């Protein structure tokens, strides 16, 4: 039995699970234009035979905005609404199919005022015995069985509907009064208004407005409170015999009100919903969705930067740039911070002035001669080949190849690809489209002749330069050069260097076994630190020089020499075989185009770094077959490595020296590289040297960076390992006499790498 109940419940929940309202993507409407397409709302998951109740509303809109449904077949307007005409709100009933058909014909009419146009659609199965008021978004349930006022008031509160507790209906507006009068045919219906406390002082007696004083004296209009709705019959309320304390509407079948005593047995209405705006409704099983369009060209540019998981994006900000006269310059001085999620919106910084240079648009007007031919649709290539008689072009358009846009009556208005120009024949372009032209439905059918394998168009052509937005760029700025230096120190570390050596060594004698260590083309790109599109010994040498402090990896430590920016799609397309042909240079300015045809533009940009061979601080590629490198480099943020080795730090004043000893305990790891950053107080200590106690012949390094020593060892070929005897003694001379040294030196970033190129966490004991 239990199982049966469970299955039943699952089935019931399943039935309700798929019902939804989906909304279209945002778009921008033209100002002061009627009948612009606003389709895209779709109801789904409802029973095809069920009658649904749907509400379409403009939630936010500039003055002058309305909508209209061009197709209303099978629909019924809810009480108080009509199907035809321009509206800001419409409530309808019908099947899912008929409502979807209507929503597909949804058009927006705009005025001259620019602003957001938020459209909302809500739907539910039209409940039997309830009426929906689209003005306030409340449901009303008439109860025809007669009862006293106090009985009706109490009984209403015991009911719930779609998650809302009921209350005796309140009437707070003329439209609500008209709604009730139109939908509930009974006379003398109790509603929540009483003067039972003070005779003649009528107050709303239920719902969200409970306690609101409606009037202070009996009499049709006497004592009516301004701004509070009253609709009493002539001479009412009269408080007859001091016992008529309760209100009814539809008095004697009219739409006005009267006061009656509690011993009347009248029908009543239960109201559900406490909000004043239908879009705030919280009914259960009441499905809603909305979209924010805009009226007028509100061009947006939003960025999602993917820095990978070990970089704090908030350490960077951006500035918008545009490219004019072969120079980049900032559009404004405004600097926009990148959020912790890598997001930044530079919409307000765009230079939206258009310039010529986007090609030429060819447009038709009705003519007498067939200057244009459209060949039959090429199904294979999904395109039309279109010829314009070159006599229409010659002498008018200096360069026909600039034709990039074409308007052919109402058949097509959009981009084209130039094909060829024959001054004595045709100027040909291609229209790529998956939807074939509607020749028979064209309003210009009289100008179109169907030939054998082509259509001839009686049309004249005009040509106009296409205005386009300037090339834009977003410039990333490090908020602090010091922090950038610290970050970059943690990006290129001993693991990167060892991994580069390992990949190079395993490339084989002829290099044809390359790619055994690197799993991604991005690694090759980053390991090619000299940027010559070749990863070779010169690069590993430079990496080693950098690690050992002999020379910096890049010409300057500025961001533009360190960072690499790629669109996410470009980044994902970089492979081990094609990386050499991709854009591989460093840059901190990412160019982007606003001429996308869309007004709402979002750009996804991936970040990586020169020298980040193990991609510890880089975006991951989202392509199959590229495995995530498990290594993580030193970082100010939390690392997630599981492999660990130990090291011990001990400081001591011996004679006139401060000596800090770092001892390695590799535990079970085959350690081939170590790296430690020992910070020191350079106002109190002078660095002397590092003494290395290491077995084999590793490359040992100890570089003074002014206030820190970068030290460690690297066995580039992995032929031997660093064992428990590995020790580093860092020797300082105090600048003044001291008898304590705690805190004069401190260890911060540490790292080790094992024979397999896996980064190891160093636990300092």
């Amino acid at each position: 039995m239990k199982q049966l109940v469970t299955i039943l419940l699952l089935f019931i929940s399943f039935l309700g699970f798929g019902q939804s309202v989906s909304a279209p993507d945002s778009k921008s409407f033209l100002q002061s234009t009627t009948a612009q397409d606003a389709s895209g709302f779709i109801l789904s998951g409802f029973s095809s035979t069920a009658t649904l109740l749907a509400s379409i509303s403009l939630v936010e809109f500039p003055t002058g905005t309305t909508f209209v449904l061009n197709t209303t077949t099978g629909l019924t307007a809810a009480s108080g609404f009509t199907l035809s005409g321009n509206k800001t709100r419409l409530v309808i009933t019908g099947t899912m199919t008929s409502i979807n058909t209507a929503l597909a014909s949804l058009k927006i009419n705009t005025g001259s005022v620019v602003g957001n146009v938020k459209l909302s659609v809500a739907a539910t199965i039209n409940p039997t015995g309830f009426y929906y008021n689209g003005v306030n978004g409340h449901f009303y349930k008439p109860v025809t069985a007669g009862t006293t006022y106090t009985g009706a008031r109490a009984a209403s509160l015991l009911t719930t509907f779609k998650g809302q507790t009921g209350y005796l209906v309140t009437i707070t507006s003329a439209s609500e009064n008209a709604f009730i009068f139109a939908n509930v045919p009974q006379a003398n219906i109790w509603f929540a208004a009483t003067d039972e406390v003070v005779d003649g002082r009528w107050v709303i007696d239920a719902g969200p407005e409970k306690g609101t004083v409606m009037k202070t004296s009996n009499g049709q209009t006497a004592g009516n409170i301004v701004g509070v709705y009253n609709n009493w019959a002539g001479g009412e309320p009269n408080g007859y015999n001091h016992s008529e304390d309760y209100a009814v509407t539809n008095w004697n079948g009219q739409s006005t009100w009267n006061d009656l005593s509690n011993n009347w047995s009248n029908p009543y209405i239960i109201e559900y919903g406490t909000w004043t705006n239908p879009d705030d409704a919280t009914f259960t099983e009441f499905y809603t969705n909305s979209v924010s369009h805009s009226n007028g060209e509100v061009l947006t540019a939003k960025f999602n930067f993917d820095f990978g998981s070990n970089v704090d994006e908030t350490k960077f900000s951006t500035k918008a740039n545009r490219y004019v006269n072969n120079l980049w310059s900032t559009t404004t001085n405004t600097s926009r911070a990148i959020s912790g999620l890598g997001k930044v919106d530079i919409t307000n910084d765009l230079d939206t002035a258009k310039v010529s240079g986007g090609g030429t648009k060819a447009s038709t007007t009705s003519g007498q001669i067939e200057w244009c031919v459209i060949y039959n649709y090429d199904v294979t290539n999904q395109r039309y080949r279109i010829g314009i008689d070159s006599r229409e072009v010659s002498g008018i358009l200096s360069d026909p190849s600039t034709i990039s846009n074409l308007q052919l009556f109402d058949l097509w208005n959009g981009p084209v690809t130039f094909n060829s120009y024959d001054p004595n024949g045709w100027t040909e372009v291609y229209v790529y489209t998956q939807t074939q032209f509607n020749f028979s439905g064209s309003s210009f059918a009289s100008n179109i002749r169907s030939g054998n394998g082509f259509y001839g168009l009686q049309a004249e052509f005009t040509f106009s330069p296409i205005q386009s937005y300037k090339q834009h760029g977003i410039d990333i700025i490090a908020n602090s050069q010091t922090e950038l230096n610290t970050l970059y120190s943690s990006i290129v570390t001993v693991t990167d260097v060892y991994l580069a050596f390992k990949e190079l060594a395993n490339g084989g004698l002829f290099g044809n076994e390359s790619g055994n260590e690197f799993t991604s083309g991005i690694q090759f790109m980053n390991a090619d630190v000299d940027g010559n599109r070749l990863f070779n010994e010169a690069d590993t040498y430079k990496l080693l020089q950098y690690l050992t402090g002999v020379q910096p990896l890049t010409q300057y430590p500025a961001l533009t020499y360190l960072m690499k920016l790629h669109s996410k799609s470009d980044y994902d397309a970089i492979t081990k075989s094609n990386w050499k042909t991709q854009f591989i240079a460093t840059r901190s300015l990412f160019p982007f185009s606003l001429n996308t045809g869309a007004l709402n533009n979002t750009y996804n940009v991936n970040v990586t770094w020169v020298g980040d061979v193990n991609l510890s601080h880089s975006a991951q590629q989202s392509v199959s077959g590229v495995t995530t490198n498990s290594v993580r480099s030193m970082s100010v943020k939390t690392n997630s490595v599981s492999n660990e080795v130990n090291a011990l730090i001990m400081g001591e004043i011996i004679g006139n020296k401060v000596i800090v000893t770092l001892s390695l305990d590799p535990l079970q790891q085959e350690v081939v590289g170590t790296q430690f950053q020992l910070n020191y107080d350079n106002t109190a200590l002078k660095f002397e040297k590092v003494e290395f106690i290491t077995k084999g012949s590793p490359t040992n390094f100890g570089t003074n960076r002014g206030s820190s020593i970068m030290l460690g060892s690297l066995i580039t070929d992995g032929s031997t390992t660093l064992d428990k005897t590995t020790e580093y003694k860092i020797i300082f001379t105090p600048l003044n006499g001291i008898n304590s040294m705690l805190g004069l030196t401190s260890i911060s970033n540490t790292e080790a790498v094992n024979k397999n190129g896996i980064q190891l966490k160093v636990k300092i004991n």
Partner: protein
Amino acid sequence: MKIIKIVAFFLIVLSFSCTKMDIEPLPLPTTQKIFSVSESKVTDGQDIYFDLPSSGVYILAFIDIETGQVISREKFNGKSGENIKKIYTKSIISKYLYLTLSSEDNAQISKTKLTLN
């Protein structure tokens, strides 16, 4: 002239009375034993006072509270009774540390929390 002086006096009094008082944690009293309190605010070069049970080799260490890593350690010869040592903070990146006192064989004797100024 006298009126000007009176006005100036009141202005000075008024300006002091309107100055916001910042309530800062009190620095460690100069002779307060560092391990006798659970938490202290310290500055670079500050003397710390602590008692040792006997003369011998001891170890002071800074441990980063966030990472649990030892970041600085000093081995020293201590004397029985009160000892005075300086601690330095300029090389330290972290703000919150534990200060531990251990014997030469690394057995912890005392521990307290430090906030670097």
